[in-house]
């Protein structure tokens, strides 16, 4: 059984559409991998306990707190970070644009969490009410406590994404 034990592991990650083959140490979090190896610093480090959500990314289409995802357990995975939200022609994602237009953020440290949560929520529920939005962003803390403007921005994003031009 000793032959199963390794000091590092090969992972194949498609990050924002680009394939990376990386040799990772067993204790490396996905957050560290993204920031330190791939230099994608839009994903923020907050608490390292899974409380704050500033490190949120999408793993295989579902949002996750990258600080509490062990990179070596992602043998093959598709990752989208906040950098990967913008459209192919370089425009902001409709959710990002709505946060910009509505001044959704104050300091913006929680942006990865709020934006990713809103993207996932709106994919499942294109017309969320206040309660659905609040529960949708519950995994991310805004230390500025600017939740009202965040909820307003998510609503604006829903309208934007439901309009025929979007």
């Amino acid at each position, binding site marked *: *059984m*000793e032959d*199963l*034990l*390794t*000091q*590092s*592991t090969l992972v194949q990650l498609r990050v924002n559409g680009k394939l990376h083959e990386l040799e990772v*140490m*067993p*204790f490396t*979090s996905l957050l560290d991998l993204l920031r330190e190896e791939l230099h994608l610093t839009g994903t923020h480090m907050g608490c*390292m*306990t*899974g*409380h704050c*959500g500033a490190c*949120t990314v999408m*793993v295989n289409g*579902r*949002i*996750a*707190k990258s*600080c*509490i*995802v*062990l990179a*070596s*357990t992602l*043998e093959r995975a598709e990752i989208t970070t906040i950098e990967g939200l913008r459209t192919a022609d370089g425009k902001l994602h409709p959710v990002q644009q709505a946060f910009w237009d509505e001044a959704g953020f104050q300091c913006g440290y929680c942006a990865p*969490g709020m934006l990713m*949560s809103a993207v*996932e*929520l709106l994919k499942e529920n294109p017309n969320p009410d206040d309660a659905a939005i609040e529960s*949708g*962003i*519950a*995994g*991310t803390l805004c230390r500025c406590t600017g939740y009202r403007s965040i909820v307003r921005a998510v609503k604006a994003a829903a309208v934007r994404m439901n309009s025929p031009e979007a």
Partner: protein
Amino acid sequence: MSLYPLFARPRTVQQAAQVLESMSSGVVVIAGGQELMPHVNHGVLQPEVYVDINALADLKGIREDDGLVSIGALTVHRDTFSDPLVAEKLPLLVEAMKLIGGGRQVHNRATMGGNIVAMHPLYDVVPVLLTLEAQVEVVRGAETRRTSLKELMADPRHGLGSEAILIRVLVAPMAADAGFAYEKLKSSGGAYGSANAAVALTVADGVIASLRLVIGAVADRLVDASEALAFCIGQSWSDALASKVEHCCAGLIDQPLSDHQGDGEWRKAMAGVVAQRAMGRAVARAVAQEGR
């Protein structure tokens, strides 16, 4: 042993069991990592070997097995509480799991197995599984054993031991006319309740015919209040009965937890409150079913 931690990714349950059996202490099983990683990041836990069980396909998914609902240990919370079979057969589990804290990010990665083996008194899944008298399947070496979750929770080592793997949970479907409720009292915006109660009961001709109730988050171990509440059988729900339930359940807590979720005396009192509220809601549901 290496100076740095080692990593193993077994491909079968047998392989995983063998790896675990061949190790001494310092080995951890990792699935979603939602319980483990905060401890690792803060140096509380320094594993020497990580055994990643994500490749064990047998541990994934929900199915019906010999009349029981089988939930694989690797099934993530979102997949469990949005599963149609679970919604139909185990609505109490759905109600409780939707209240699990940490947000969508955690619901997307945290697993059934991880939630159970964490043996955390504040977590929301085990009170429900004890209420529904769930069984668990555990592999240790070459042996696969099915045991009641109650027995597992009563183990003085307070857990599985590092050489075993939880494979799946098996739960008998709830009666179609059952009344049920999960009450989670939160004193702050955090993830945990200060007192939780799960109840499943039946009502016949307006009176309580059967009852199971488990209280969590108030003591180191979960408290099964079902036997102590036997006086409710044959009674209809009333303010007087609610008050009796409240006193009885608070009285069952002799060593309450005192932590961020509230001090001990208050937690003891709240054990009664959540029990009474959960039962009131469950009876109302059952009566509505009966009236149909």
